[in-house]
């Protein structure tokens, strides 16, 4: 049985595969067997290293040598020099762009790793159902520090100085929110964790609650101490049964240890947490609607002011923060505001978790420092666009956000830049689209979502969005007019100005941003009755090319609506009136005679 002494890891991610990683593997194997080393050294293809720009990558274990831009013909050198003589091949080592030094050990090149896990620090490392594992990773050390060494003002000051902003989407400074709640005096105050994650494709909060529930419990306790609240409530979607289960387990364990309950750490401070379940209404992620839902009322927003910090749950001062915001708190207390505020950009500190989805190779949950560019996220962490297609747009911020395009690829991602680009941070969904996506249809999809989720309380949102969605539908069906484009803009502006809550005010964003960035695509749909992405069925036309058609009748026999006619051995014709554009004929045609126009 082979006992390998050394492993050569060759990146098999899509980017590297395109630049011949399979050939590198076979060349390495060939060289190794020539030298009789194939029982000592194993060559293995791995997943993406997230450093595609410098691919193909070969990593040598156990010494962690990291070779970049390796060519198949380098295999012989790697085997002869590194494997046999134990000398690193300097010319293939990564060069630090700043000091031009060659770096040999991948452990010293942490900077190539674009991701920094702060909120996700324990996800995937500890057993979420075992409080001991959390404790051994500095868990509950922050609340211990707060209760034994700090005053409430100091805690608020630390959070303020850290520059942490709300991760639920709005980006309101967290410390300021705490300060306002702390200054409103009442016999009872509340701390609420907003775990009503509703953006399509977003699952950051669920992952945190399922992977590291104690960090949220600890942070809420800190929050309670800071503002003078003794009760915490977590508003969580009932659709997250595992997250609920793990939270219940975690709360139970924290109570047993005395980390929730009376007189925590002998400080005289009492705090406990209850769960409240949401029924999955998107609008309940809006803090006033969330509070009403917890009170047993309809999940509808109310006008602010009064802000929840003045009069929230049960008309008492209430501080509402999102799950990811809370996950950042304990580590800020432990490592200090100065450390945290060094990460990120001037106005957006720290990191942001994104759920990377869509037409991208490495779909995943990522955490990146603020200020990273979309290009780094898509092409390095995400491993590029699936099937080598062209990048078209990325949607951020869910139904409240917008689409960013090629021209935004190098814009540093932070709250303010995204808003300036016509989108928003949102809770962190990031859907990548390639050239097969029709932007009018995308806008329509998000509008349909908003129409479905509008609570109906205010007219602009209830009726305005419905009209927007109808106009978009009309355009995708090929019935749009130039006046419709004008109407879209006007109506969108009115909704933005007049809707009651955040949901309504931001709901036209998907329309406006696609109009701005992909105006030509709207024009094409309206003027030329064409959808180049090939998504809008009504605008497609199936045509048989008479030159290539041999009259085999395969298409006609397989057409489910008998829209194809023609004599045997004579070119056939599609009746576009009857055609339902199902594509069955294209699949059957062996002569590539049918095309979509």
């Amino acid at each position: 049985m082979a006992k390998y002494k050394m492993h050569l890891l060759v990146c098999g991610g899509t980017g590297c595969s395109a630049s011949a990683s399979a050939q590198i593997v076979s060349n390495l194997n060939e060289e190794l067997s020539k030298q009789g080393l194939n029982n000592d050294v194993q060559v293995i293809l791995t997943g993406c290293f997230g450093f595609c720009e410098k691919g193909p990558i070969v990593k040598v274990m156990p010494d962690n040598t990291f070779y970049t831009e390796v060519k198949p013909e380098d295999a012989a050198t790697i085997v002869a020099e590194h494997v046999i003589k134990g000398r690193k091949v300097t010319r293939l080592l990564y060069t630090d762009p700043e000091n031009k030094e060659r770096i040999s050990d991948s452990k010293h090149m942490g900077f190539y790793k674009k991701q920094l896990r702060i909120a996700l620090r324990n996800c995937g490392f500890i057993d979420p159902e075992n409080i001991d594992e959390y404790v051994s990773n500095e868990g509950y050390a922050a609340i211990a520090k707060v209760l034994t060494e700090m005053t409430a003002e100091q805690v608020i000051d630390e959070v303020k100085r850290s520059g942490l902003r709300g991760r639920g989407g709005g980006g309101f400074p967290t410390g300021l929110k705490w300060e306002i709640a702390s200054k409103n005096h009442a016999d009872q105050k509340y701390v609420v964790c907003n775990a009503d994650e509703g953006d399509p494709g977003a699952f950051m909060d669920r992952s945190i609650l399922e992977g590291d529930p104690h960090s949220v419990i600890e942070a809420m306790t800190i929050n309670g101490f800071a503002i003078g609240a003794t009760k915490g409530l977590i508003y969580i979607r009932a659709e997250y049964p595992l997250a609920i289960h793990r939270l219940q387990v975690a709360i139970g364990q924290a109570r047993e240890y005395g980390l929730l309950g009376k007189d925590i750490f002998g400080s005289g401070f009492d705090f406990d947490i209850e769960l409240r379940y949401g029924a999955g209404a998107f609008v309940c992620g809006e803090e006033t609607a969330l509070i009403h839902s917890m009170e047993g009322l309809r999940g509808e927003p109310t006008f602010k002011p009064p802000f929840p910090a003045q009069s929230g749950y049960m008309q008492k001062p209430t501080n509402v923060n999102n799950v990811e915001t809370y996950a950042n708190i304990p580590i800020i207390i432990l490592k200090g505001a100065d450390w945290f505020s060094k990460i990120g950009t001037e106005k957006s500190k720290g990191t942001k978790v994104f759920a990377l989805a869509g037409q991208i190779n490495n779909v995943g949950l990522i955490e990146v420092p603020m200020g990273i560019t979309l290009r780094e996220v898509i092409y390095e962490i995400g491993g590029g666009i699936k099937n080598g297609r062209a990048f078209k747009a990325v949607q951020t911020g869910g139904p409240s956000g917008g689409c960013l395009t090629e021209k935004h690829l190098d814009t540093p991602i932070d709250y303010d830049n995204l808003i300036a680009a016509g989108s928003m941070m949102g809770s962190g969904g990031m859907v990548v689209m390639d050239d097969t996506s029709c932007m009018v249809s995308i806008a329509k999809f998000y509008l349909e979502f908003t129409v479905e989720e509008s609570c109906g309380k205010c007219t602009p949102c209830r009726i305005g969005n419905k009209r927007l969605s109808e106009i978009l539908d009309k355009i995708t069906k090929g019935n749009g007019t130039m006046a419709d484009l004008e109407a879209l803009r006007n109506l969108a502006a009115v909704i933005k100005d007049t809707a009651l809550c955040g949901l309504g005010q931001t709901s036209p964003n998907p329309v406006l941003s696609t109009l701005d960035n992909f105006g030509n695509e709207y024009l094409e749909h309206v003027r030329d009755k064409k959808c180049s992405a090939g998504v809008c069925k009504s605008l497609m036309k199936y045509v048989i090319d008479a030159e290539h058609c041999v009259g085999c009748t395969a298409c006609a026999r397989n057409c489910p609506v008998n829209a194809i006619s023609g004599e045997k051995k004579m070119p056939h014709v599609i009746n576009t009136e009857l055609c339902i554009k199902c594509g069955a004929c294209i699949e059957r045609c062996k002569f590539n005679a049918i095309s979509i126009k």
Partner: protein
Amino acid sequence: MTQIKSLADLKALKTNIQEKMDTRAKGNKDGLVQVKVAMATCGIAAGAKQVFDYFLTESEKRGIDIVLTQTGCMGYCHAEPTIEVTVPGKDPIVFGYVDVKKADEIIEKYIKNGELVEGIIPVNYETVQKN
């Protein structure tokens, strides 16, 4: 469970657990192989539970001592189910697309013989150091 009533209590508990965890991570002579299975909802939906159960029953059947734990999302949605295997004295390795067949291969090849199998996901992030 005893209650934690002071900073000293918390530190004592932490040291106590860390000693236990250290032995299992660093692996001295009788250090055990540690297997973590990413079990968030999405991982479970992709089959992580079956993989977890498989490791549980098979390690017993085949007489290999492993420390098996569930954990949260590792972030590699494109390659669920994912597991992390730490062989004493070596860096942890993450494997993606682990089904029962792959799990068998990992036990037989990597855990028993230190031979790598395909499906390795290189770690492409840094985690903040807590102290």
